[in-house]
């Protein structure tokens, strides 16, 4: 009999708060994290809004309890803060026995530091603080997180663009199922960089106003930054008092349509959702809420909407995109939204899809997300979607622990 996988800890930092309680209160007061650029040094300041974590690196060092003189990337700092919160909320288990895995996802690793170094390097190949490059690789922040927790089990990093964190959650669950680990700290992190902001900008999928996911008049996405981690523990290892929810379904698929765009019929998204339901052994009608990928780009929302119509038919569950609050946190988004999914189950709430006005006509005008905070909801199953470049599509199913 396969072991059940429980979620015993959650931690998050994003534009709407430095921990879960701030995040929850921002959502309850409908306070979005999007705003004018304050921290990132870019020519787009004043023109493109972003969802920045509202602390500079020095302040993040204080939050992470790290000497500000340390050579450390913003990516690692955000990751450590969220992973530490998740670990504490799981009752601070001892992690040094080799039975705890640390799996994290990100897209550009320590690029926030690399791009500073590279400016010097381009002037003169022998200049710049070369040790910066030791913090460049995607794996570096994961190892810093593992070290900050003292974990010595399996450590690995996934980079599948914007579904990275969702995929680490799936990996952790599968490792535990097979008895390779008792516990895993899983999620993802990404810091805003000039590299990503300019990349998305040149693809013309950024909104120069505040984004409107799933709206007929959506113009694109707002980029965000942050980290979200959850602690998974095997049945028998998890302590009853720390169990917040259960992870029951997960699947990954590939859209195999285009390097950056989603297929018009949402094949990958459909297969991921269907696969996750199959692992959870539930029917589509049992899903009570979908935390959609919902970036706010013309392409994603249409494709995801089609896939949902195909899966749910007439019985569309309640759904919303929380990216209007947090922005699209890229490699972190699956982690941030996993935390939000667990919070939804714990607090019996459904999040508003901020700024939604008009349903998408091409979806029949019937796909209307929740626009106000719903409380006292009887939620059992929550589905969370994360899709990324390279056609990568992942879905997770969380179940209330009652």
């Amino acid at each position, binding site marked *: 009999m396969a072991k059940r996988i429980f979620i015993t800890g959650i931690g998050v930092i994003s534009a709407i708060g430095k921990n879960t309680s701030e995040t929850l209160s921002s959502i309850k007061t409908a306070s979005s994290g999007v705003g004018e650029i304050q921290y990132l040094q*870019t*020519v*787009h300041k004043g023109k493109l809004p972003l969802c920045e974590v509202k602390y500079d690196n020095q302040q993040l060092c204080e939050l992470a309890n790290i000497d500000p003189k340390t050579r450390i990337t913003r990516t690692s700092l955000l990751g450590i803060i969220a992973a530490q919160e998740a670990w504490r909320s799981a009752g601070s288990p001892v992690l040094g026995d*080799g039975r705890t895995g640390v799996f994290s996802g990100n*897209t550009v690793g320590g690029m926030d530091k*690399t*791009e500073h170094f*590279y400016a010097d*390097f*381009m002037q003169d*190949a*022998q200049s710049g603080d*070369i*040790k910066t*490059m*030791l913090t460049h*690789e*995607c*794996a570096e922040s*994961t*190892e810093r997180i*593992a*070290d900050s927790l003292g974990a*010595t*089990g*399996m*450590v*690995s*990093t*996934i*980079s*599948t*663009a914007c579904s990275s964190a969702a*995929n680490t959650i799936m*990996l952790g669950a*599968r*490792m535990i*199922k*097979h008895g390779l680990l008792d516990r895993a700290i899983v999620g993802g992190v990404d810091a805003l960089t*000039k*590299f990503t902001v*300019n*990349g998305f900008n*040149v*693809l013309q999928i950024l909104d120069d106003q505040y984004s409107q996911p799933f709206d007929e008049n959506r113009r694109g996405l707002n980029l965000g930054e942050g980290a979200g981690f959850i602690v998974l523990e095997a049945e028998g290892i998890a302590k009853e008092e720390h169990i917040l929810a259960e992870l029951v379904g997960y699947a*990954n*698929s*590939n859209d*195999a349509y*285009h*390097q*950056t765009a989603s297929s018009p019929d949402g*094949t*990958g998204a459909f*297969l991921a959702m269907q696969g996750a339901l199959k692992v959870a052994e539930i029917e589509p009608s049992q899903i009570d809420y979908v935390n959609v990928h919902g970036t706010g780009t013309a392409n994603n929302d249409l494709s995801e909407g089609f896939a949902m119509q195909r899966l749910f038919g007439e019985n569309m569950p309640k759904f919303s995109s929380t990216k209007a609050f947090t922005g699209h946190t890229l490699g972190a988004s699956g982690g941030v939204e996993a935390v939000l999914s667990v919070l939804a189950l714990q607090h019996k709430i459904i999040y508003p899809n901020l700024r939604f006005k008009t349903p998408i006509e091409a979806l029949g005008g019937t796909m209307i997300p929740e626009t106000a905070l719903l409380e006292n909801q009887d939620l059992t199953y929550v589905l969370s979607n994360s899709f*990324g*470049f*390279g*056609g*990568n599509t992942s879905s997770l199913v969380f179940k209330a622990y009652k």
Partner: protein
Amino acid sequence: MKKNIYINGLGNISPQETFYKTMGEEVVEAEGAFFACQEPNYKEFIQKKLLRRMSRIIKMGLATAQKALVDANHPPLDAIISGTAWGCVKDTEKFLETILENNEEYLTPTAFVQSTHNTVAGQIALLHHDNCYNMSYVQGYVSFESALIDAMLLFYDNKAKNILVNGIDEQTEKLGILLERLQCANAETAVMGEGAACLILGAEKTPNTYAQLAGASMLYRPKNKASIQQCLEQILQEANLKLEDIDVVLTGNQDQSLEMALFPEAAFSNYKKLCGEYPTSTAFATAIAAQLLKGDSWTKTALGINKKKVQHLLIYNNHQEVNHSIIVLSKVAQ
């Protein structure tokens, strides 16, 4: 539950002549601190109109995937899993340089789009219209091992019959400068390499089967040598093997005291003399080990192994006492 897993197809681009042949008749040696791949004529494998956009690593990744699939007689894939530490370095450099040179203007979308670490795995899916599980691991020197372990879990889950797994990393001129400044690359002591090696793993033996993948494991900051030994013993035990069953050890390490002490009877060879040092070099080692177990004498010669009978082989790489990788392969009776 645990299952037999076979290596049924191979594609290997390396500094040696491993793409068109199993191994070149003459071993190529590195000149200076870098060891570059011998690349095939990509036009044989990739459509011209697609080729124009691809950086070297994407071409290497796709050509080796194609070669491995043909070699394995085109099984339908249930998963595509990539391991790469450095990712698409050239496209990343190109996009970063234009941002800095042009002050965030006139940027090229192609470089950005192809800079993501999952480009190769995504492109393989795209070329073969394959909607299956698609994953990319970027865990430094155990990126390939992460991919292998993921694949093994999929087999154990009965979720897969055939899986493509690769280990790919490219060198660039700029990366070379950085590695020299970081004192990672050095003509005398540390020749940096690159490569793309692709395996088709299958749950069933085929007439083309090279070897059995008997086990794989990775360790992060093990406390001491005893914990490495414990891990080695455990992985062998799970494969119903004892320490003395290992006939050949392919090591990536300069200090070989640990493996020498554990496997006194085994033949040793440092595979990095053939491919140089790079994060997914164990993928190269796995590919040539599979060739060796299938009886390829050129590979044996290139590795300098005299042992007649090779039944079980172990690959061990220890990167700076942080990331340890262990892979065990066994000969398959045809």
